[in-house]
């Protein structure tokens, strides 16, 4: 499969990145090299093989349902680029 310049633009939007003209050209070339390499995986016979998402397949790790302290609000906000003291501030989302 080859990746077109239009694919790169589309993926950049999905990934919430903006690429300069130079970056987009270089990215198209490099992603094609990498994807050509990983395309070799299609030669592997995986008929009937279960996908393995984790090395240790542990499920439903539970702990007692006990209320614990959570991060205080001021500490949760302390690293925010912009906050009001009660919440994070971002550019207007509605009515834009």
């Amino acid at each position, binding site marked *: 499969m080859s990746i077109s310049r239009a694919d*790169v633009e589309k993926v950049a939007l999905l990934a919430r990145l903006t690429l300069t003209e130079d970056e987009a050209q270089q990215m198209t070339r490099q992603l094609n090299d990498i994807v050509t390499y990983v395309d070799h995986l299609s030669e592997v016979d995986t008929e009937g093989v279960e996908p393995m998402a*984790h090395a240790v397949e542990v499920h439903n790790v539970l702990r007692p349902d006990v209320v614990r302290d959570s991060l205080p609000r001021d500490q949760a906000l302390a690293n925010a680029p912009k906050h009001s003291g009660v919440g994070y501030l971002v550019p207007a989302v509605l009515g834009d």
Partner: protein
Amino acid sequence: MTLVESSAAELLGQLGAGETSSREITQACLDRTESHDAQVGAFLRVDADAALAQADAIDKRRAAGETLGPLAGLPVAVKDLLCQQGEPTTCASRMLENFRPPYDSTVVAKLREADAVLLGRTNMDEFAMGGSTENSAFQPTRNPWDLKRSPGGSSGGAAACVAAGMAPLSIGTDTGGSIRQPSAFCGVVGMKPTYGRVSRFGLVAFASSLDQVGPIAGSVTDTALLLDAIAGHCERDSTSLDVAKPNYLQDIDKPLDGLRLGVVTEHFGKGLDPEVESAVRAAIAAYEGQGAEIVELSLPHSKHAVATYYVIAPCEASSNLARYDGAHYGYRTEERAMLAQLQADRKAAQEAGDEQALDDIDTALVRMYRQSRSEAIGPEVKRRIMLGAYALSAGYYDAYYLKALKVRRLIRQDFDQAFEKVDLIIGPTTAAPAPELGQFDNDPLGMYLLDLYTVSANLAGLPAMSLPCGQSKSGLPIGLQLHAPPLEEARLLRAARMFEQSGAWETKRCEL
């Protein structure tokens, strides 16, 4: 022998006997860093006053006869990827340049409990993506054995500071070889434990199903000492294994009887540097000399490991790094200029009557995300986010991500079958010694192929370690890699110690 030439185990002995103090050791590390790190660039930050204050507090407690932790008074360097409360944790990225975590990672908390001195934060490839530490947003790290060469990566600073005598012990992380490969290039010992053996809580995520924290040190015993302090179940990491932790130091000097070592045919194929091959073959012969049985075997799917890794790791990375949105923490673009430009773009499209262009213009929020991320994230990280987003996008998910997960199982099954016949697998850590800086500037795929021998352990979740086994004619260290079945770190360490004790290779100090 000076303090910076002593092993951590020797220093503990001297501390216990009252022959030295934590202040003296810490000061020696700080002096060494002061005089040599301008050349090497292993550390991103060292807070000498804070380190000395910790050392003094431990010395005081020792003098008062208090019971101290197992690393009491020993300086430990920490890769700048593990959260330390109130201290910058940058991941060598502009994105997190001003980030100060509100809590300690479990590993940092365990180091504190062990009474270690937190010496400073080491350089790395941005968000641990890369194999050369050249992808740091702040500085490259140089290999102490040859300053024109890379220390490897992504834990390049972590390995280089140990090799250069700036710290006896160092914490790294390994997602595809990021502890073992720089350890091999810098002539030190490094281990990636079993997935789940060491808590990932407070480790800034790259690829969550592959990331693992581990020790780097100057000797096998020191590696065991550090692993012993950081390993164990953690209820804040749901992938942490709830199993008993053995004492890794207990039997470390006892050779393994009837050891069966697997030598993998695929590890000695095309592309293996002849000097690396002969050093590794000599190490295998040294084990034979100690009574080990050598078993030739095949890992038929290992040739697909790099491709599998470079699908799975970027997919997980693109998802994990979505959290850097310029809203909750991290870098945000200059908002006023961004909004002014957005308005100008809209006006231009309106005046041109271009409906399509007007439609394509991002909302203010999306533009804030995109511009913040694009300004603060470096090229290698962008590449991996893009690769992952592509492989996960509609139409490609089955062909790439799902396919890679299936091949991952085949890779694991190869190991499971191999470990029915052998106790450990032995081979090279890397195909060649450390590359020159800049060698892979325009060749990301070439850099990815450096991970050939290391990524399988991450995909399969196995423990593996690298230890020095030789030197090239030009004086560069060569690493020997051992793989063990899950949770057999103690076996790995004992086998590595056997090699050290065989006297087949004596690691030299690097002259700076």
